[in-house]
């Protein structure tokens, strides 16, 4: 049948020279259906994405599945990237949601409708918290109790909504909100 079976990974590799395009250029190329651009994005971003997702989920197969889904989603909706932040952050947004998707089974229609009623967004304060110099935030985070720290990580650093954070941590979204408020208070006190 196949005289010389070339692995999929080897396809296009004869190009040889490294791809000098920026991440944003690669995403634009993906919009134009450049398969090589997707391959380059994969080469650049899969390593850190796999590691970061592995911290959220100990099951390696689920992480691999989420990574796969992420890049297939990048191929399909590259036109959704707005140049408001780095490409890596956009990829992370897709990646963490893909992970949630493979980790939890689909909720019932009723649950999903109820969640639609009150969507949560990151507030400006939360964004500011992230922008503060790392060392202080790290220390401030360290002083929080474990449950508070996890909530801050999930909502602020992972960019999840309260519903999504609740699903990831296995607690109701109301609890997420109250813990978040307490954490913000404590961190503000630690930082000033």
């Amino acid at each position, binding site marked *: *049948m*196949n005289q010389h*079976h070339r692995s999929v990974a080897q396809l*296009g590799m004869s190009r040889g020279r490294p791809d000098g395009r920026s991440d944003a250029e690669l995403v634009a190329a993906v919009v*134009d259906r*450049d*398969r090589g651009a997707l*391959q380059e994005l994969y080469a650049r971003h899969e390593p850190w994405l796999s590691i970061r997702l592995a911290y959220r989920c100990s099951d390696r197969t689920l992480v691999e599945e989420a990574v796969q889904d992420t890049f297939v989603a990048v191929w399909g909706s590259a036109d959704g990237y707005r140049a408001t932040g780095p490409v890596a952050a956009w990829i992370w947004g897709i990646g963490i949601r893909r992970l949630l998707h493979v980790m939890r089974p689909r909720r019932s229609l009723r649950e999903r409708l109820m969640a639609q009623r009150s969507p949560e967004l990151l507030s400006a304060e939360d964004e500011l918290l992230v922008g503060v110099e790392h060392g202080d935030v790290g220390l401030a985070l360290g002083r929080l109790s474990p449950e508070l720290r996890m909530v801050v990580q999930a909502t602020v650093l992972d960019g999840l909504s309260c519903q999504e954070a609740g699903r990831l941590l296995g607690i109701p979204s109301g609890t997420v909100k109250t813990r978040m408020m307490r954490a913000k208070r404590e961190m503000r006190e630690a930082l000033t």
Partner: protein
Amino acid sequence: MNADAVIELRSLSKRYGSTPAVDDLDWSGGRGVIGLLGPNGAGKSTLLRMLATVLGQDSGSIRVFGLDPAVADERLAIRRRLGYLPQEAGLYRNFTAYDLVDYVAVLKEITDRPVRRDEVRRVLDDVGLTDEMHRRIRTLSGGMQRRVALAASLLGHPDLLVLDEPAAGLDPDQRLRMRTVLSEVGQRATVLLSTHQTDEVAAFCQRVLVLDRGRLLFDGTPRDLAHRATDRVWVSDAPDAGALRSWVTGDGNIRNIGAPPSGATLVEPTLDDGYLLVATEDGVRS
């Protein structure tokens, strides 16, 4: 006639109106890369179409793999081992390259989907279109569109590859790549390609046929074709009236072919010289 030749032509003729496109052609041949040289209107496309089983002859016989294209069942059997690249492919421009090659793969009876997918990817990689495979054909350059058609002709590892001016519109880098692919195919199959550029033939054809006005003027290796002009090529400062052909070369001198006068500065013949000599002599004779 060679008993196990891949292609056998006997007294093959085809005319359009009163003009002969192929005129009483006798030839047989097999493995390797065979170049078909000749000016426009020489009958190259007509011959290739007949070999690709898409055109019937007026008289004479064709055998491909020992099978007769005029018989329906044998024609089908030939097509299962054939790859054809026409001069104008006429591809549907709204399909992506992948769509089109996949479609041709279905036409070539590659029914199993994973096998077909691997095969489509393989041929698109062979012609260097891996990164462009999901772009619509109308967004591709002319050379890339040609390569899509070339990829489609390579599907299924054909035993006979019939290519009508495959390198038309390709830049030198792409031509080199194409030659590499075709040379590889030529190692276990027969590749018959037409061109009107001698440098292409010189580069990688093991055998060359010169065609003009439907007749075979030469059949041999490229080296033999060049040697036809041994001691028949000389340079001078001014055009020589006795030469068959004279032209100005890049460095300002005149190059002549024909019967050299005594004392002329003879030069080593190139493939171009051999081809011109063969074509012009025949023109003079007829």
